């Protein structure tokens, strides 16, 4: 049979990789080509022999047994090899054995070992591949090998890069300063009165930090979702004249480096801000400091998160099958009725996804609260200062991080509850040539009324950003034009030796571009793949898998930074101070966004098309490539853009992960802001934004637009805009 032969070829591929990586490739990061597990194991590192031995047993099994994938010995051998690999990797550290038993067993282990290299990692990968094959042969993922391999490998990656660092840090919440187990301390930390106080609702005292965080998150997500919906409706469903401008405008906040919006808001609305001074003279009142605190952070966050909600909702709106709305119209429903009974219910998954994203982003936001927070404490800044403040208290930071994690998980639970088990499929592959319904006029005016102030505010903020980089000192309103700031950051010389870059910002700029360009496609791939697995495959532990993927997003950047350094500074995964650790931290932090976008898109696409593809003999991978991916292009675009841009603008995790060799743009900007050099920070940010716009345009060009083969026609009086 042809199918069995291809299956065997793939399994043999994994086996071949395993053999090559244990026999031929350097096992350690520092080793040469000959220093494989086998040669080293035979000389002075006998603890590598079990891995090599089990590899040969597997190879022997493949030679002897006819249907070795189903052989009873396969899974035990693979699991034993994985266990041997992990045990030696974690059991013997840099300076000798971590587990004393290994030390007595292997005396030479006292000299320790360095981090795993190519051989070690590929051997692990090959073993995971074999494991997934063996499991698929026993019915895991309904025998779908591609899905099984994806599940197993993603779970392994999540374990290594999400759970392992969290556990390592989480342990700190339950221990005291000396590292001994202290449950009492945990209870004391988690019940601290400055966490849960409700005084702000009854008096002028401030609330606990958890209450503050929740209050901010809910307000900010509500406003951002409402605005995002208004924007999406205007862009997708009306002939509003400034659609393109709105679209462009709403992209700006996404590509804005941190601190800049905060600084611009202070320049506009601070006590000596332009608009404040103007207003104070107009109404003859004493200029106030109202912008510091909840109001200011809320303004900055709504500005920053509306684009995310807009993109999610636009994707949802564009995927709604117009025949449904057309049917409603044909049956005589008024526009408002059509909207409230057809469009709105279909928008619910998008709205839930948008709200959730904005809520979580607000919980994790660090740049805005730190600039505009004033006395308003939120969890992310509190965690930051528990680590870097006047009193280093990792235990407290870990406890607060767990609270933050808990809040996020509750948000997911609520989303699942609210969405229930309803059906939101509208892209079915059947005839879906319909006309989108015109917006009810009332709703349109409401949307315009909501969007205009937002647009004005955004324009004001970005004028300051643009202006600020090119005048002497925007903070003190010294508006003499200058290119000095840009030149400090990006000076260069074209001489006989070619281009020489002297500016202080070049290094961080180049690293940032590299990290973003590497992490964006990886993030997108893992995110979309995960969405597909969760939405379309059946396998044991699917719910737990879905939950696990969200964890990394829920953890505040500061905690990710510190826990990554703690977990990956020593063997076996020794990557602190490299560019890889930056890439990996971004991939696993942003992957849930790609996944959420993918799931929202998939929820609207009927399975029947995939089933048709499979009935005609295509495997999981082929169906994914040829049927699913083209239909969820908007989600792919969202995932790529989001991960690229976040990698360029994230700050809190990065602070701990950057090194002299690999500095990031945001860390550089933060240094400048701390030093009060606002102009240089703003100038650098302006350059970053231009670069990002170019990159987003490039991504759009590469990904393209989904073609659903729908009619375009007249909506109202004027012709609909051709699709961009």
């Amino acid at each position, binding site marked *: 049979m042809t199918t069995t032969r291809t299956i065997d070829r793939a399994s043999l591929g994994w086996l071949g990789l395993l053999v090559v990586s244990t026999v031929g490739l350097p096992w350690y990061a520092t080793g040469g080509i000959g220093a494989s597990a086998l040669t080293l194991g035979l000389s002075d590192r006998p603890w590598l022999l079990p891995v090599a031995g089990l590899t040969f047993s597997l190879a022997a099994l493949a030679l002897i047994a006819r249907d070795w994938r189903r052989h009873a010995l396969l899974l035990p051998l693979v699991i034993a090899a994985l266990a041997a690999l992990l045990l030696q990797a974690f059991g013997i550290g840099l300076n000798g054995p971590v587990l004393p038993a290994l030390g007595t067993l292997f005396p030479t282990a006292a000299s320790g070992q360095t981090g795993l290299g190519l051989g070690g*990692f590929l051997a692990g*990968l090959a073993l995971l591949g074999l494991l997934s094959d063996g499991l698929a042969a026993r019915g895991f993922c309904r025998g779908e090998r591609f899905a099984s391999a994806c599940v197993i490998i993603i779970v392994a990656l999540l374990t290594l890069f999400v759970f392992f660092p969290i556990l390592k840090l989480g342990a700190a919440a339950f221990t005291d300063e000396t590292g001994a187990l202290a449950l009492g301390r945990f209870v004391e930390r988690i019940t601290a009165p400055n966490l849960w106080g409700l005084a702000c609702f009854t008096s002028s005292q401030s609330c606990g930090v958890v209450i503050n965080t929740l209050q901010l998150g809910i307000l900010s997500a509500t406003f951002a979702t409402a605005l995002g919906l208004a924007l999406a409706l205007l862009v997708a469903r009306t002939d509003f004249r400034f659609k393109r401008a709105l679209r462009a405008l709403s992209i700006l906040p996404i590509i804005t480096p941190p601190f800049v919006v905060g600084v611009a808001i202070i320049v506009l609305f601070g006590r000596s801000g332009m608009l404040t001074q103007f207003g104070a003279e107009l109404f003859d009142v004493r200029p106030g400091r109202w912008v510091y605190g909840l109001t200011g952070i809320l303004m900055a966050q709504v500005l920053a998160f509306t684009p995310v909600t807009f993109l999610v909702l636009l994707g949802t709106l564009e995927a709604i099958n117009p025949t449904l709305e057309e049917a409603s119209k044909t049956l005589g429903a008024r526009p408002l009725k059509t909207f409230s009974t057809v469009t709105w219910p279909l928008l619910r998954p998008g709205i839930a996804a948008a709200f959730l994203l904005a809520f979580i982003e607000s919980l994790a936001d660090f740049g805005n609260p730190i600039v505009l927070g004033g006395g308003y404490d939120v969890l992310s800044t509190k965690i930051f200062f528990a680590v870097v403040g006047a*009193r280093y208290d990792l235990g407290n930071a870990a406890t607060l991080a767990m609270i933050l994690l808990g809040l996020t998980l509750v948000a997911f639970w609520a989303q699942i509850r609210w969405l229930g088990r309803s059906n939101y499929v509208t892209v079915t592959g059947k005839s879906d040539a319909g006309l989108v319904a015109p917006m009810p006029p009332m709703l349109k005016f409401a949307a315009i009324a909501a969007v205009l102030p937002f647009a004005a505010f955004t324009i004001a903020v970005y004028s300051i950003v643009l202006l600020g980089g090119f005048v002497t000192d925007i903070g*003190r309103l010294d508006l003499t034009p200058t290119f000095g700031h840009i030149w400090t950051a990006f000076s260069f010389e074209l001489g006989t030796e070619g281009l020489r870059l002297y500016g202080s910002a070049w290094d961080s700029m180049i690293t940032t571009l590299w990290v973003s360009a590497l992490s964006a496609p990886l993030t997108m791939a893992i995110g979309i793949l995960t969405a597909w697995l969760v939405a379309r495959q059946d396998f044991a532990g699917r719910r737990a898998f879905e939950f696990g993927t969200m964890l990394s997003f829920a953890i505040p950047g500061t905690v990710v930074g*510190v826990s990554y350094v703690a977990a990956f*500074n020593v063997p076996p995964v020794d990557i602190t101070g490299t560019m890889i650790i930056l890439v990996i931290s971004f991939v696993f932090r942003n992957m849930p966004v790609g996944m959420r976008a993918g799931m929202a898109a998939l929820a609207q696409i009927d399975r029947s098309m995939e089933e048709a593809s499979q009935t005609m003999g295509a495997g999981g*991978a082929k169906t994914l490539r040829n049927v699913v991916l083209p239909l969820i292009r908007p989600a792919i675009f969202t995932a790529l853009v989001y991960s690229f841009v976040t990698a360029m603008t994230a700050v809190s995790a990065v602070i701990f992960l950057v090194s*002299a060799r690999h500095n990031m743009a945001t860390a550089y900007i933060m240094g400048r802001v701390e*030093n*009060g050099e606002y102009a240089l920070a703003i100038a650098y940010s302006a350059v970053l934004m231009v670069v990002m716009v170019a990159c987003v345009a490039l991504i759009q060009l590469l990904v393209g637009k989904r073609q659903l083969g729908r009619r375009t026609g007249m909506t109202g009086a004027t012709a609909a805009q051709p699709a961009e």
Partner: protein
Amino acid sequence: MNRRSMLLAASAIALLPAMQARAQSGELVLYCSVGEEWCRVMSEAFSRETGINVLMTRASSGETYAKIKAEEGQPRGDVWWGGTGDPHLQAAQEGLTEEYRSPVLAELQDWAVRQAETSGFRTVGIYAGALGFGYNSELVDDPAPACWADLLDPRFADDVQVANPNSSGTSYTMLATMVQLMGEDEAFDYLTQLHNNISQYTQSGSAPIRAAATGETAIGIVFQHDAVAQTVQGAPIVTVAPCEGTGYEVGSMSIIAGGPNPDNARIWYDWALSPAAQELGASAASYQVPSNVNAATPPEAPRLEDVRLIDYDFATYGSSETRTRLLARWDAEIGSLPQ
């Protein structure tokens, strides 16, 4: 994505660790905790003189301490230069930094040597800066404030800023200074009264003076050299050394234990204590007082001789117990007051 491209992608991930760069000889990994500009000037000057390539990371002293602690298993940095003394002392106490007695030690000011002695020679003072405050002369009318007590004046209601001592070493220095100057209960009385005039407890230690420079507040309580730097940049800031006396910080330098380039670390250490290296600060708009007696103090720097300095007890007030107790009391008595 087909199987082949997935394999390719997966092997690309696995390949990455092999590409990592490692420190080689002829290099020095510097963790720098002063302003970016000063860090840069120092690294470049050192590279020029010695031919050793400096890989510099700038982060605040709290961030750097957290980083060094997280990297304890395999230290990546060689020298931690700059930043307020307390986290350096804490690192010394925990054995994160290495003992080294530089031959240049004899040329240093008393306070710098005392810092070294307190830590068992695991750290050393490289500059000093006195605490004080700066006011915006466009917002403050005569009589100008000259003492700590003047800050309680009701005309400054909602117009004074200082950092939160939980997040900022600068503000903790103020708390400890007040306790040493007035006695603990009196100090908390003073801070409670001052609270009426405080508009905001900022997160960053130097944020109050930046706010004063742009007119967001009238008075910022900071280290005097930070206030002077604003004046030099053209802001209408007047620096005040409080008449009752004040505390100070000793900016410090430590060699990280087990770093990759220990020999180069010592070369840096000796060089950074030399008068020529210490005079570089002024060229980067940093006006601290250098610790080498032969180094010229920048003319803009607040002269320590003119400031009534208290005999700041770094060992006691830098210790973890005192710090935890004072901060807990601040949280309970000041931090919980209505804004």
